[in-house]
């Protein structure tokens, strides 16, 4: 029998709709694989088990009754553990939320449920999404299915490991400075960060409000587009949600796969791995990027080099803005209303209980960023740090705007290196932060950006990033799908098919 965990979402949807497989069969196949494999990968923090089977049963019963079901009803899904799920544990990778059972659910969780998808569980992540390797989780590391000694990227590393390891057909990730694209890149997946405001943030545990966006992590561009169309669109519960229709994402993915990019102008960003900007980039990553650009040119795209000098300032600007907002967003975790409370034994006053709770509940990276952000917002330093960083943000946005008057999309590597070995960067925050070098500019400007595999370097996946103007997410899908189709055809199989089969696995 076909292994149901190896099938793409688009195909699963077809099989389910046609009644060739049941939702329970698909769900059980994934739960079984999680049970068998997740001990090694550590992708999940919570698995729904019986609850998932119950939900799948309901879908099958509805189908048996002849109810009209959405096209993806019965497809299982995994959610990064900062997506608030009603009555399902939600920790954001932090001890401070251990045991919290949310009384409400995120808009995107509700939309996925309304589409009939079945929640498999919640995936591991860097605590409060702060990190690029998932090593900052309070609940242990997650391993990269391509090499168990390496990180799966982060902060959505649980989601990337789950989808690459076939423990979920697709998953929700969130991206603040690259946390969808970078883990997708280093695990051979497609990951898209939507235009800021195009996917509701209601019910996403906030890291940096002006940057956070949820988006799809999938094994194909088409699957990513399918998920984006389920979760995207206006939400009146999110003041920053854009009241505009999505731009035909699934259609764009299908059109791109046909392989015709004539008339498309592609800008290669010099500051992201181009001439004079190769420090810290692995040669294999740069080679795969060059080849991907050549593929696009071969499909008829016109390629030019574009310079965006302010992109060099993206990393310092990001590491002022994100921690500043985080220092405020994380103030609510003080033990009064939910989650951990420490020191409430009658011997400590209120201030001490709050301090002890935060001391015990937060990990070192979270504390580092709270301290950084608190300092940057302090009276007398605000203008020099937060204010200045916002100006850099404006400059970066202007350079994007200028570039997009000339080209339709901008491209770069997604990340300067392939997945690094576990433990090699945890004690060097600057090296860790460098993993987001290429993804930060689009984050700061609120623009859509996708990472799509461009091949392997030393046997590990490399990601290729496509950035587009605000609300032109369709261009990301179109270009990514074209690259994916051309490379799959040239290779004769998908990149993920080269995933080493772990010893002892079926």
């Amino acid at each position, binding site marked *: 029998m076909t292994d149901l965990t190896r099938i793409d979402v688009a195909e699963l949807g077809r099989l389910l709709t046609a009644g060739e497989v049941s939702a329970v069969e698909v769900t059980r196949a994934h739960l079984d694989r999680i049970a068998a494999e997740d001990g090694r990968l550590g992708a999940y923090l919570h698995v729904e088990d019986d609850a998932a089977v119950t939900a799948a049963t309901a879908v099958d019963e509805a189908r048996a009754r002849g109810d009209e079901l959405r096209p993806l009803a019965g497809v299982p899904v995994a959610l990064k553990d*900062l997506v*608030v799920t009603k009555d399902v544990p*939600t920790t*954001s990778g932090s001890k401070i*939320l251990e045991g*919290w059972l*949310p*009384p*409400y659910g*995120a808009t995107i969780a509700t939309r996925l449920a309304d589409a009939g998808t079945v929640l498999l569980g919640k995936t591991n992540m860097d605590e409060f999404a702060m990190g690029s390797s998932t090593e900052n989780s309070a609940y242990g590391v997650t391993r990269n299915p391509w090499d168990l000694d390496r990180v799966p990227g982060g902060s959505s590393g649980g989601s990337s490991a789950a989808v690459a390891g076939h423990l979920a057909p697709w998953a929700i990730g969130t991206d603040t400075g690259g946390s969808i694209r970078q883990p997708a890149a280093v695990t051979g997946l497609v990951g898209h960060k939507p235009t800021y405001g195009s996917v509701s*943030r*209601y*019910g*996403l*545990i*906030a890291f*940096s*409000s*002006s940057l956070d966006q949820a988006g799809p992590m999938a094994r194909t561009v088409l699957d990513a587009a399918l998920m984006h169309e389920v979760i995207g669109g206006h939400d*009146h*519960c*999110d*003041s*920053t949600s854009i009241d505009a229709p999505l731009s035909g994402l699934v259609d764009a993915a299908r059109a791109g796969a046909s392989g015709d990019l004539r008339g498309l102008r592609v800008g290669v960003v010099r500051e992201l791995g181009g001439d004079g900007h190769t420090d810290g980039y692995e040669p294999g990553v740069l080679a795969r990027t060059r080849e991907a650009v050549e593929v696009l040119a071969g499909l008829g795209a016109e390629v030019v080099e574009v310079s965006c000098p302010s992109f060099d300032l993206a990393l310092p600007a990001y590491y002022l803005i994100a921690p*500043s*907002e985080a*220092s*405020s967003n*994380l*103030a*609510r*975790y*003080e033990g*009064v*209303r*939910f989650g951990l409370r420490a020191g409430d034994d009658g011997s400590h006053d*209120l*201030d001490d209980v*709050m301090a002890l709770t935060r001391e015990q509940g937060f990990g070192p990276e979270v504390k580092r960023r709270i301290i950084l952000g*608190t300092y940057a*917002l*302090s*009276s007398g330093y*605000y203008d020099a740090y*937060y204010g200045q960083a916002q100006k850099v943000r404006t400059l970066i946005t202007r350079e994007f705007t200028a570039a997009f008057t000339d080209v339709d999309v901008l491209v770069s590597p997604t990340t300067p290196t392939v997945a690094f070995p576990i433990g090699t960067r945890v004690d060097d925050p600057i090296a860790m932060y460098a993993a987001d070098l290429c993804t930060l500019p689009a984050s700061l400007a609120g623009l859509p950006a996708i990472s799509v595999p461009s091949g392997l370097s030393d046997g590990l996946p490399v990601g290729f990033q496509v950035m587009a103007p605000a609300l032109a997410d369709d261009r990301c899908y179109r270009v990514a799908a074209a690259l994916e189709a051309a490379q799959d055809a040239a290779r004769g199989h998908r990149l993920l098919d080269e995933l080493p089969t772990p010893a002892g696995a079926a």
Partner: protein
Amino acid sequence: MTLTAGDRLVDYDEVLTRYEPVIGLETHVELGTASKMFCGCATTFGAEPNTHTCPVCLGMPGSLPVANAAAVEATIQIGLALGCRIANWSRFARKNYFYPDIPKGFQTSQYDEPLCIAGHLDVEVDGETYRVEIERVHLEEDTGKNLHVGGATGRIHGADHSLIDFNRAGIPLVEIVTRPVPGAGAKAPEVARAYVTELREIVQTLGASDVRMEQGSLRCDVNISLNPIGALELGTRTETKNVNSLRSVERAVRFEMRRQAAVLDEGGRIVQETRHFHEDTGTTSSGRSKEEATDYRYFPEPDLVPLAPDADWIEQLRAALPELPAARRARLQQEWGISGTEMTWLANAGALGLVEQTVTAGATPGDARKWWLGDLARRANEAGTELAELPITPAQVAELSGLIAEGTINDKLARQVLDGVLAGQGDPAQVVAAQGLAVMGESDELVAAVEAAIAGAPDVVAKVQSGKVQALGALVGAVMKTTRGKADAGTVKRMLEERVLSS
């Protein structure tokens, strides 16, 4: 509370010989919107604790605010009524600090980009007009309410445990901040009170809030500093909180002036601090719990899009403003032909609206004023309540006044009727009917009473007949006594004259 050495006071008049007071007021008004500032929870006062809450106003992880359009509109209306410029670009900001009654660890407020800026409010004290400049009017959210259980003071220190009610958390609050007001001199306390009174009336007229100080829907922080006369720089100010009535506003200013003068006279320095007003003693005490100043780390709230009120919309709101209290007073003063001083009395007594409604219901302005400022004011005072709280309506006062005018009752009977109405016995006409309080016509009963009076006082009759007409008063009095005031004195006099003088 005991006065410490620091609370030595200088006589009020003496303060003014050496210092110039500068006042400033920060007033918080809870808007009367149906739902909270950033979520859909109800704002009803007095509900069971924590029943009007949701993930947003409880600050649950992942929840997001959405601004209440009705609250923005009300704030703009208040700004317009105060002559402010309405910003075409305004943002919310986060005011970061830890306290259990702020669920998010920050209060969503406005900082350097408020909705309304640079207005003014003119207030009148003893016939003189004082201009109070408004610095800003901004929109924010209220905090929850702490209840500290156990311990003597009701404060957090010494309490066994604390309870928090988040029903109030997230209720829209408008903060109206004045610029420092110099030049009020000895009248500073009255100017402060008149400002809050006038502001309250404006907000009430706009229908933006029920502005009840005792329920906390209008709260006032009073800033006071003293400037040595002739000095160029401003003195250090204190900020007095817990000022919960109009009278307290005046008392707090007066007390702080006297206290600060004593400190300065001794060569001391005023500490810039928050002080608490004590209603019972009329004093203030230092409210500082910590030495260090709080750094609120304000920054623009990234979860809310900026407010950019459209110019056309602002003009529509301006055009739709109701007649404001000052304009209304000027109009009524002219319509009723009264002096400015009389108008001030009416306004200060809280009787303006009542008198106006009584006039609308048919009474003459003079009669309406007479009742509300006379008998009714006295009774409200005796009962320790506001005029408006008396169990009588303007329509009932107008009816009473009409009964006198048509001669059904006289002034004396009217007071008995009033007692009946206030006792809940119904409208004036019903009380008259039920108690038989109508003036007697020239009935057999009255003729009998008149004749009895004449027969009973031959000496008085003789006096009158000998030319001392004023002696007739004694006979009138006798008749009124036997009829227990129900007779009309004029009628009685005429009937007596007919009988005594024509014979």
